[in-house]
């Protein structure tokens, strides 16, 4: 058994010596390129963004505020600047399959140029084509064709009409066609009664003549459609020729600017063909030649000229180097783009001009940085992103299409070839979950940049830390710090790390502290932040967040929460717990009580029984039973029933840091040895009774100190902690000073016996070779009590058995 070590004040807070700094002001220090302590993450980032292989995307894991974004951005910008600018992407009309817009890849800056060129071409065509169709040349040639048709149709009719007249017949138009009839001298149709009076041979001749003429008329009628068809064909050819000349003239110069891009040349060919086939679209209805209407080229058949527009999906005309896109709203449509609709006459309408780019389009040939949590919380975004990365294609698809919620024909834009490096920024927990539950995650995100939360603390690292402080100050435009203030910030970082030998590199927290210290320095009219300002910032922050701990301390002082800080009690121990109300962590004392009676060797923890305890807590209680049996009753049955209670707790409890306290309470109850209430204890224990480190040691000590301080420090009060926690001590200044003055004590214990001795004031007692303890030691009392309980149980069992046998 070892004794408890009473810790000196200097062991409770590791100061940073300001004399180690050679500067008078942090403004003298050079900027630090990287956050110190993140070398592993930096190497991973460099590797991840450097390797251009499939699946080598990056996941930056760490706590929020660790500077992940800043570091990633810095290295991305460094690399992206040296990479070539990405191309532009445009969507154009697909003249072959209208619902499948074509994607064209163009050199950076030429997307807008193509759009402007096409717009200019359309404007020019709307002037040039009407002018061409209004020209004398066109009119004359067209009239010639139409006149020829008229002649073809009219001349035979005229001849037939003349022939009919010679035979005394009249060719007249009827509602549906034409007919022959005998005529009078007044060139009117002969009335039927007059005709009937004619001699029969004359009537027969008329009938015969009419039949003959009808045959001829029918032949003329049969030939007419062929003439019309031929005329229409010639007129169409003429229209095409006129349009072709106008289009070619206008496109000649434009084409020269695109000779280096076969895809654009092909598109322009399709545009030319479409314009020639649909020249009527460019002619105002009123101005359209009458004959144009005849042949279906008038206004009513105009199709929208929107099809000649160019939708510049991604314009990289001003992009320098590879693009870096930080997408804060990682929804499906923000990542993959969307297809918008317009309302026309109550109907929704869309076309390729309404396709909008997503972050993946903008980040193509570059980098996309997304918050993992936001991405995963957006429906279908994660699945779609994986699919895009696997296929190396990005396709604009609405969620409705993805889910087949709409069956109407919509657009199916051509997919773009995707070459992007995705950087997910997220927590460790998400990384673990994705690794375990999504087999594709590991295939796509092969590089993990693991951000440290702490760094080692020594003279060199403190120097580096000072430079980081200087860098942050300059970035935030804050007042510089003197060496004392710098040292205080470093000490605070150690406290934030909950470790005297570590420094927290949580950039956000450090920056916040610097901002707040800057505020207090300015309040004092200082041009440089001194130690008092940092101290004030820390104290003010603690005060602002101190409502809940204050209420707990108040409840203790008023006797609402029963915590004794003096006297002795059997089976009652001051344990320590740490809580977090969202703003800060704080500790406070809790009373643990133990009661024992005959039983079957069970230690029941009431919290566990009512399911107010977590699994680690339950494990600790079971460990107690193991220790109890092995340590005190290796060769006789452990026939005790013990109950342990965390008094006045109303919520769940988790963790094993109260194991030592529970054990002390239990042993006190078994040995009927009183425990000093002026002491509190925290620490875990294993089955061999060794004290094990716990978390939140500083907050726990400070919590009990506050309770004692309120009541008045007696010099008897103190806290027992595991020896393994000594290195974590970075206690508040008032606690340290109280210890220095001998008003409060911190003890480090290596095992249960050391704690038992100190807390009971009796020697715990070492076990001899026979497994027995020295007489009147605490352990002996416990063992004797257990033996007695075993014996009593045996006696009771025999009695009960005998009674039963008697009855039998």
């Amino acid at each position: 058994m070892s004794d408890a070590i009473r810790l000196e004040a200097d062991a409770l807070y590791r100061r940073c010596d300001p004399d180690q700094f050679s500067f008078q002001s942090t403004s003298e220090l050079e900027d630090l390129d990287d956050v110190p302590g993140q070398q592993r993450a930096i190497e991973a980032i460099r590797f991840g963004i450097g390797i251009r292989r499939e699946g080598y995307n990056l996941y930056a894991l760490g706590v929020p505020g660790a500077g992940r974004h800043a570091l990633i951005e810095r290295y991305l910008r460094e690399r992206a600047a040296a990479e070539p600018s990405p191309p532009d992407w445009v969507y154009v009309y697909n003249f072959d399959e209208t619902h499948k817009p074509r994607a064209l890849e163009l050199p950076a800056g030429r997307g807008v140029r193509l759009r402007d060129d096409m717009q200019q071409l359309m404007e020019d065509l709307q002037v040039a084509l009407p002018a061409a169709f209004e020209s004398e040349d066109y009119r004359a040639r067209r009239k010639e064709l139409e006149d020829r048709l008229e002649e073809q149709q009219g001349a035979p009719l005229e001849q037939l009409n003349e022939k009919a007249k010679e035979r005394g017949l009249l060719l007249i138009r009827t509602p549906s066609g034409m007919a022959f009839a005998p005529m009078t001298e007044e060139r009117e149709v002969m009335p039927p009664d007059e005709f009937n009076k004619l001699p029969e041979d004359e009537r027969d001749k008329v009938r015969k003549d009419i039949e003959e003429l009808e045959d001829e008329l029918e032949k003329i009628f049969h030939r007419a459609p062929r003439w019309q068809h031929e005329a229409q064909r010639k007129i169409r050819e003429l229209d095409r020729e006129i349009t072709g000349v106008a289009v070619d003239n206008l496109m000649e110069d434009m084409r020269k600017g695109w000779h280096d891009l076969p895809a654009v040349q092909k598109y322009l060919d399709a545009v030319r063909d479409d314009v020639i086939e649909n020249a009527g679209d460019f002619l105002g209805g009123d101005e359209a030649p009458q004959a144009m209407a005849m042949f279906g080229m008038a206004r009513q058949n105009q199709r929208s000229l929107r099809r000649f527009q160019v939708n510049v999906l991604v314009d990289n005309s001003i992009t320098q180097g590879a693009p870096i896109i930080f997408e804060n709203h990682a929804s499906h449509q923000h990542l993959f783009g969307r297809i918008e609709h317009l309302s026309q006459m109550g109907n929704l309408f869309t076309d390729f001009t309404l396709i909008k780019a997503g972050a993946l389009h903008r980040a193509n040939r570059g980098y996309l940085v997304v918050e993992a949590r936001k991405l995963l919380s957006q429906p279908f975004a994660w699945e779609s992103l994986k699919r895009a990365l696997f296929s190396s294609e990005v396709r604009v698809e609405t969620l409705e299409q993805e889910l087949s919620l709409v069956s109407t024909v919509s657009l199916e834009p051509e997919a773009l070839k995707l070459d992007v490096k995705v950087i997910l920024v997220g927590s460790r927990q998400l990384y673990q979950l994705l690794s375990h539950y999504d087999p594709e995650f590991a295939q796509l995100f092969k590089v993990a940049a693991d951000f440290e939360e702490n760094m080692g603390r020594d003279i060199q690292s403190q120097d580096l830390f000072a430079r980081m402080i200087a860098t942050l100050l300059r970035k935030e435009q804050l007042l510089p710090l003197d060496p004392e203030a710098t040292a205080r910030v470093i000490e605070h970082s150690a406290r934030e790390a909950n470790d005297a030998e570590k420094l927290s590199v949580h950039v956000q927290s450090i920056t916040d502290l610097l901002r707040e210290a800057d505020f207090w320095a300015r309040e004092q009219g200082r041009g440089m932040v001194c130690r008092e300002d940092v101290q004030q910032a820390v104290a003010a922050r603690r005060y602002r967040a101190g409502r809940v701990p204050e209420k707990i301390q108040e409840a203790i002082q008023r006797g609402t929460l029963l915590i004794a800080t003096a006297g002795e009690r059997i089976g009652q121990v001051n344990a320590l717990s740490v809580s977090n109300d969202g703003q800060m962590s704080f500790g406070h004392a809790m009373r643990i009580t133990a009661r024992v009676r005959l039983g079957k060797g069970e230690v029941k923890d009431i919290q566990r029984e009512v399911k107010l305890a977590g699994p680690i807590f339950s494990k600790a209680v079971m460990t107690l039973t193991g220790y109890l049996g092995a340590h005190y009753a290796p060769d006789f049955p452990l026939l005790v029933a013990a109950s342990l209670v965390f008094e006045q707790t109303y919520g769940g409890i988790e963790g094993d840091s109260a194991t030592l306290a529970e054990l002390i309470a239990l042993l006190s109850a078994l040995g009927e040895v009183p425990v000093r209430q002026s002491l509190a204890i925290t620490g875990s224990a294993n089955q061999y009774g060794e004290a094990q480190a716990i978390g939140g040691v500083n907050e726990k000590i400070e919590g009990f100190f506050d309770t004692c301080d309120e009541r008045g420090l007696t010099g008897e009060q103190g806290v027992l902690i595991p020896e393994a926690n000594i290195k974590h001590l970075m206690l508040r200044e008032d606690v340290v000073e109280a210890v220095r003055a001998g008003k409060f004590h911190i003890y480090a214990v290596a095992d249960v016996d050391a704690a038992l001795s100190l807390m009971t004031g009796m020697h715990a007692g070492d076990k001899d070779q026979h497994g027995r303890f020295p007489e009147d030691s605490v352990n002996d009392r416990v063992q004797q009590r257990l033996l007695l309980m075993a014996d009593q149980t045996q006696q009771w069992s025999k009695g009960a058995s005998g009674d039963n046998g008697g009855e039998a």
Partner: protein
Amino acid sequence: MSGHRRILVALDTSAGARAALHRAASMARRMEAELTGLFVEDQNLLRLAGLPFARELFAGGTGRRDLSPETMERALANEALQLQRELKAAAVELDVPWSFHTARGRVFQELLAATVNHELVAMGMADARPGQLRLGSNARHLLAESACSVMLIPPGTLPTGVMLVMFDGRASSRAALSRAQQMREPEQALEILLLAEVPGRLTELREQASSLLERDQAVTFHIFTAGDAAALVAAVLRLAPATLVLGELQNLGADVLEGVLGRLHGTVLQVRDTQ
């Protein structure tokens, strides 16, 4: 007279007649006139249908059909109904008062009879084609005998472009100039062709014409001083007016009238001074 108050339009199913209907409706709205539609059931068709071997050949060459008085009556009644609907639609669209009448007999006679109490009769005309007489007998009769002004409208012409008035200083041409200003579409440019027998009359004619113009009326003058009928026809065709306005034949002679009407792709308005 402030303008035509009743406009008669001769209706049939030809493209020219339909163009006439729409032009007449538009004019009636602008002049706040009533539109009267007249469909004449041609007695020639009724006679034809009564003949024992009456038969019509369909225009598309798709066959023949025997005719009877009943089928002809029915066809004409249907035609009348359809034309009445078209008249109503055109009038209602422009909020013009309208009425529809049918008559039976010789077309030009019925038309002439109906022109009484009307200020203007609008009639469709076949489009200008070479080698064809464009003026049918009905149009010719109307121009010669109508008691009111006559407007002949070929299909496919628009109520825009230049309105050209032929002005020789006579009463009928003065009336024509006045009426032209009333009937002109808002966007239609007005031009005047001064017909002077001798050049010395040009100034006088121009002053006369100018005095008849409304205030701020922009106008372009053209002159024709000498030449035969062919030269005059050529001069008119060169100016290619969308609407040609002339007085009562203006002593032009049949050659000029036939020449112009036969080749001009536009509307012809003959104004008859009814004052």
